[in-house]
């Protein structure tokens, strides 16, 4: 399986993401500069965390206007799995690939520690290796991770089972304790916590590895079924 990791100016979790795919999972991965990236031929696209364009204006807003987002939309429409973590999630929101917006954390603090997440939906290509309601330990590291959407959008997210992860102890004020959501089609996942920072025991948790393993398992099933 071949992963693309898109590097924006200010990405700083790109190597962690690359490491998770390449070394922890043991699959192929490329780091691609956003201006030169050609996303054709990749089996999955990873948008890493960081501070694209210094978080100016709003986190992820300026990155969402770059040409690469056009390619992202095309790949998303084709059903290619896209995972956006932290700033990657913010970019997905700002570009409209996922609904909602990010506000500053409720306590105005940058927070960087492990949080317990509840797997609300394990019926996705990103979470099939988890149990439903499984509690996993994944680190967060953000200042603007307070997920917000209006009531109508929230009702739709619930109805379609698009809320994939929630916080056990909501650290940032997110609506309905939301930590990660998926699009209706089921191939674009955005989450604030960092699964790529929890892929082996030496990092204090390997609970994030199952997310990448789920992607791989799903790709293999599709590949075998399609062969």
């Amino acid at each position, binding site marked *: 399986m071949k992963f693309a990791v898109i590097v924006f100016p200010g990405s700083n979790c790109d190597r962690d993401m690359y490491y998770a795919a390449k070394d922890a999972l043991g699959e192929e991965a490329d780091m691609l500069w956003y201006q030169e990236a050609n996303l054709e031929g990749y089996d999955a696209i990873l948008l890493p965390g960081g501070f694209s364009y210094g978080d100016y*204006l*709003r986190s992820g*807003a*300026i990155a969402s*206007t770059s040409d690469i987002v056009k390619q992202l939309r095309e790949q998303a429409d084709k059903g290619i799995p896209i995972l956006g973590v932290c700033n990657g999630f913010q970019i997905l929101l*700002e570009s409209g690939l996922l*609904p*909602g*917006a990010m*506000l*500053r*954390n*409720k*306590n*105005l603090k940058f927070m960087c520690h492990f949080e317990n997440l509840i797997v609300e939906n394990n019926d996705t290509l990103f979470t099939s290796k988890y149990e439903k309601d499984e509690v996993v330990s994944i680190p967060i590291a953000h200042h603007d991770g*307070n997920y*917000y*959407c*209006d009531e109508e959008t929230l009702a739709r997210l619930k109805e379609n089972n698009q809320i994939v992860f929630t916080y056990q102890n909501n650290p940032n*004020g997110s609506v309905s304790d939301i930590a990660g959501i998926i699009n209706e089609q089921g191939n674009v996942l955005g989450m604030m916590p960092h699964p790529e920072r929890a892929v082996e025991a030496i990092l204090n948790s390997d609970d994030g590895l199952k997310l990448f393993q789920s992607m791989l398992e799903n790709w293999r099933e599709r590949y075998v079924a399609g062969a």
Partner: protein
Amino acid sequence: MKLVKVHITLKEGVLDPQGKAVQGSLNTLGYDNVKEVRVGKYLELTVNDDANIELEIEEMCNKLLANPVIENYSYTVEEGVAQ
């Protein structure tokens, strides 16, 4: 040249933790009459004279400058300083 002044504020009903913090601080200083503070953004754009400027500013606000999910915007167009 025209000078466009854009004001962006969080929509009503959207929690503004920064505003709350500033309000708390003002109250601590003894300004008890301050009941709410909303913190926003102010941008100045110097643009060429253009008949469509208002339409373009609306577009810019909706596409990039403001996030319509959480923010409202307003703007004024004034005579700018010739450069």
